[in-house]
């Protein structure tokens, strides 16, 4: 990249802005509304304007089942963006939450899902109940199991652990993986996660989720399992990489270097043909070096 003359840079930028200004003052890309675009209505908004009429209009669009789905989703997006105004949005928050609770059972799947997620992010008890009911009675489920579990998982308290256990036992694929992530909040699941992490017959993604979960839930157990995986030349590169980075970050943060492990990783770094393993081994060795220097 060449050096840039600052005065010339200013002149060029000034010309560019002037070109833009004369071309258009309106934002491109948003879909049109009868009364402005959701992405655009703020374009003329002064920060002091009363948001009330605009919020009311957007709520009406979002809940109007006769509107085009894209309009409704855009209105939901615009309302979510207004939520970032903190205190300025407070007068409308209760109505916004009520609307989301209504939309959580909307006939349109995309609207339902969007509303349920926004409620789940605020750990709304109404949404929680709907999601749990759906897991219990699949015929009435508002979203697929994997999505329901993902939303329930926003509560780090582990209140959805009993439901996750059930889904873990009955499901495969994404739902089983999301169930595992919820079980990762339960110290009582550490032994199962360790077993999954070490199980070569398990899917790579399941082993990696288990390893990541164990790093937090039971670091000692993780370290023991990770050392075994890293030292096993017959194990898969994916889980070896995950284990190595887990060890590297842990070492950087709090542990003292360990000669035996450093030797194993040094050997692995030179012998492995996997870019992911090499990168993780480099990361581990760099972290160990930094640790020694400090």
């Amino acid at each position, binding site marked *: 990249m060449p050096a840039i003359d600052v005065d010339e840079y200013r002149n060029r930028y000034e010309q560019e802005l002037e070109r833009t200004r004369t071309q258009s003052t309106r934002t491109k890309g948003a879909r049109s509304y009868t009364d402005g675009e959701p992405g655009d209505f703020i374009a003329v908004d002064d920060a002091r304007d009363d948001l*009330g009429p605009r919020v009311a209009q957007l709520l009406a669009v979002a809940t109007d089942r006769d509107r085009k789905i894209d309009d409704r989703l855009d209105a939901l997006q615009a309302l979510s963006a207004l939520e970032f105004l*903190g*205190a*300025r949005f*407070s*007068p*409308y*928050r*209760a*109505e916004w*939450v*009520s*609307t*989301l*609770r*209504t939309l*959580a*059972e909307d006939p349109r799947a995309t609207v339902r899902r969007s509303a349920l997620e926004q409620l789940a992010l605020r*750990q*709304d*008890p*109404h949404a*929680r*109940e*709907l999601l749990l*009911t759906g897991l219990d009675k699949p015929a009435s489920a508002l979203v697929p199991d994997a999505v329901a579990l993902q939303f329930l998982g926003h509560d*780090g*308290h*582990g*209140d959805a*652990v*009993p439901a996750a256990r059930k889904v873990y036992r009955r499901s495969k694929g994404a739902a089983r993986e999301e169930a595992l992530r919820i079980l990762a*909040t*339960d*110290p*009582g699941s550490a032994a199962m996660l360790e077993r999954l992490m070490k199980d070569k017959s398990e899917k790579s993604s399941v082993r990696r989720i288990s390893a990541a979960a164990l790093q937090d*839930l039971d*670091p000692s157990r993780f370290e023991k399992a990770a050392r075994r995986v890293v030292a096993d030349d017959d194990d898969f590169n994916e889980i070896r990489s995950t284990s190595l980075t887990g060890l590297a970050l842990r070492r950087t943060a*709090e542990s003292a270097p360990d000669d035996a492990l450093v030797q194993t990783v040094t050997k692995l770094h030179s012998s492995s043909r996997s870019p992911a393993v090499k990168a993780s081994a480099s990361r581990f060795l760099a972290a160990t070096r930094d640790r020694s220097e400090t």
Partner: protein
Amino acid sequence: MTKTTAGSRHRSADEREHERLIHLARQDPDSGAALVRLLDERAPHHHGRSTASTNRLRARVFIEFGDLGLPSAAMPFVLEELESGLDPSTVAAAGRALLGATEPLPTDAGPLLVSAIERLRGNDEEVRFLAANVGTILPTAIEDLTGTIEQLGPSAAPARAALAELLEHHQCCFNPAVRTRLEAALHRLGSEDRPPCCHAPSDTHEPSTAPGGNDATLTTDLTTLVLEDQDGNRASFAERFHGRATAITFFYTRCTNPQRCSLTVARLASLARRIDDARLDCGVAGISYDPRYDRPDRLRTYGAERGMTFSPRCSLLRTIGPFEPLIDALDLGVGFGPVTVNQHRLDLMVVDSDLCVRAHRTRRLWSEDDVLADLNAATGVTRAQ
């Protein structure tokens, strides 16, 4: 402002169970006491339930108090919820419970209603406890609390200054209809604060066990209970606390209510600094409710983030093994859901150098001044002995 009820209103199994418990309590000859028992965090009906479930039952019980009358034993629960509750519907229900009071309200009840409105202003929602009864028109939690102030009228007069300040500083946070109602409520409170004789003094800032009073010596079991600190050092309860008066409080790092555990540990850190500044031979400690999750590294980070400078006299701890022995021995108000705490009250106690509990503050936010006084008293008592 009124809104339509959200979503379909079918009763969940959880709600049906709550209705059954409420029905049974109402049948009890002492229905007030039976309802208060439903609020106890340790009661079996809370065990294994989610936080949402325990909140819902609390809200239902508070609503019953509004209808049936508020027993004095329930007042600490109500004030606790108004002071530091997080769930808007439960807080609003606690406000409604005050409407059932047959005796003069504590002086801080009114101001706590206002502080609850202030706390909820960024988190308002339509109340859920009325959904099954009212149908399609529901107030929000803030509207409901405002209505409570209006109905209490002069009984909530000590709230006047706080309400005027709320309207002055946060008027942009309320919609015009709520602002109008808040102004009306302010008008209803009267032009001047009622004289104190019309209100019961709040005794909730006093410890339930007075310093130098009927102290309780800890059981042998507890004195041998092993505690681990934020650095992984282990010692028995007796080894750790014997020989020095200590303020012990309880928390867990997964707590999502910033008014409870986060604030408790931040205040504990501040208390420790004041003890150091005053060169008192006292200590502070926080013990986690969630020992399997709150490993030493987690305790260390959590305390440091809240200003703790760790030392043998200032530590965060967890039990090695189950937490339950502490609940029984120290009479702690905590219940557990499927994985971790589902509901807890604030508990702070001061133990003297002989491990006798000299003060036990529950439910209400404590001040550093009060606890310093407790510590001074506990130190003095020990010396006198």
